[in-house]
């Protein structure tokens, strides 16, 4: 989706402001939004690409005017509704900021993340890498072009490289394909490469002749230059 999240190359946002001695979280609600997102992810009803896709569907003007954990909150609420873990009435109540009327301590369901399960969950060693023996479509050193694709759904092909020429710098091996994974269409394993784009190819003659941008791209995002 050509959304507001795809920020590379935009102008007008001003300088980078660094907060000295920045805390990890700035408020209790940020801790809650972070914790709830990870804890609900542990149910494995959705995957990481679906989470990213849910956040990307925030309306563009809202996305640009809200903070990071508000994006997470938006994504979580959307996923809860889509996967039937909360009813539209319950989520409307959340949007109004009305807490549920508690009937005493709730029984935590089997399958919910427990504190003793947290180290194993955060110690995860395997996420998107696949063992499938898929041959690479491109080789290191090969000239390629990022395809000019504008999918309506989730993609990790940033707008600023589409149609641009680059060179395969590193073959990282086989990974699941996020465009399919976010849409619940399986893993479609394929190679991921770091593709080197010269700064002048991306940004024109005023860019440094020396500099470059390396972007991690999948086989399906690339075409050979003949």
């Amino acid at each position, binding site marked *: 989706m050509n959304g507001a999240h795809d920020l*590379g190359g*935009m102008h007008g946002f001003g300088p*980078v*402001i660094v907060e000295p001695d920045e805390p990890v979280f700035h408020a*209790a609600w940020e801790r809650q939004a972070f914790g709830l997102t990870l804890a609900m992810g542990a149910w494995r009803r959705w995957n990481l690409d679906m989470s*990213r896709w849910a956040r990307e569907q925030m309306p563009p003007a809202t996305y640009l005017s809200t903070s990071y954990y508000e994006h997470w909150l938006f994504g979580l609420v959307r996923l809860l509704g889509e996967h039937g873990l909360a009813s539209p009435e319950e989520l409307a109540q959340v949007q109004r900021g009305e807490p549920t009327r508690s009937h005493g301590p709730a029984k935590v369901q089997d399958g919910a*993340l427990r*504190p003793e399960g947290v180290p194993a969950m955060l110690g*995860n060693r395997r996420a998107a890498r696949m063992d499938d023996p898929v041959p690479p479509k491109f080789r290191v050193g090969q000239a390629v072009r990022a395809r000019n694709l504008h999918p309506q759904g989730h993609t990790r092909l940033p707008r600023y490289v589409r149609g641009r020429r680059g060179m395969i710098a590193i073959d990282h091996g086989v990974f699941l394909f996020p465009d399919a994974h976010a849409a619940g269409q399986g893993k479609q394993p394929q190679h991921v490469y770091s593709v080197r784009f010269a700064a002048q190819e991306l940004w024109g003659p005023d860019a440094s002749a020396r500099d470059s941008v*390396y972007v991690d791209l999948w086989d399906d995002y690339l075409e050979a230059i003949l």
Partner: protein
Amino acid sequence: MSEHDHDHDHHHHGIDDPAHPHNAPMTDVQLRVRALQSLLTDKGLVDPAALDALVDTYETKVGPRNGAQVVAKAWADPAFKQRLLDDATGTLADLGFIGRQGEDMMVLENTASVHNLVVCTLCSCYPWPVLGLPPVWYKSAPYRSRAVIDPRGVLRDFGVELPDDVEVRVWDSTAELRYLVLPRRPDATDGMPEDELAALVTRDSMIGTGLARVPEAPR
């Protein structure tokens, strides 16, 4: 497995915010998150103790001190540095610095002629096991938009001016590879023990927006 993070002194245990008294009016987003937590807890879908454990991990256990330890070791031990550059994932795993958002790692070495800078233009991908959770500026529109089109300007925002003959390589973390920059070792640090070297390694130097600190002159 992970070193205590001394970079910040806000060690709130649990998710209650002592800085926010209960009688102060709550903002819209505070109300919505509170309502969501109450809904999911009442449904038995989340255990509040697990939320505390998740938050505590990144507030007190996993942070940029992990990465600094790795960098110091690479500066002190050339064989370790080579292993790190050849197989970052395996070498970091041996130190226990592996896990969520760091399953597949690459280490990028800054030299006199090449300066690496890491960004995630599409969201906020960041190597959690070695750096903890990203700072706000890393996730914000100014950095994500400009790092790829004007990396030297971004570096100037951080007070870093690179000579024109240094090549800048920007790495956009669009896939599940996560990048750690190995900053240049400062001069006048020969023979310095690893723990003192680690104190010179800033978070920003491992993202590529800063340089390692220069040691203070001996008094």
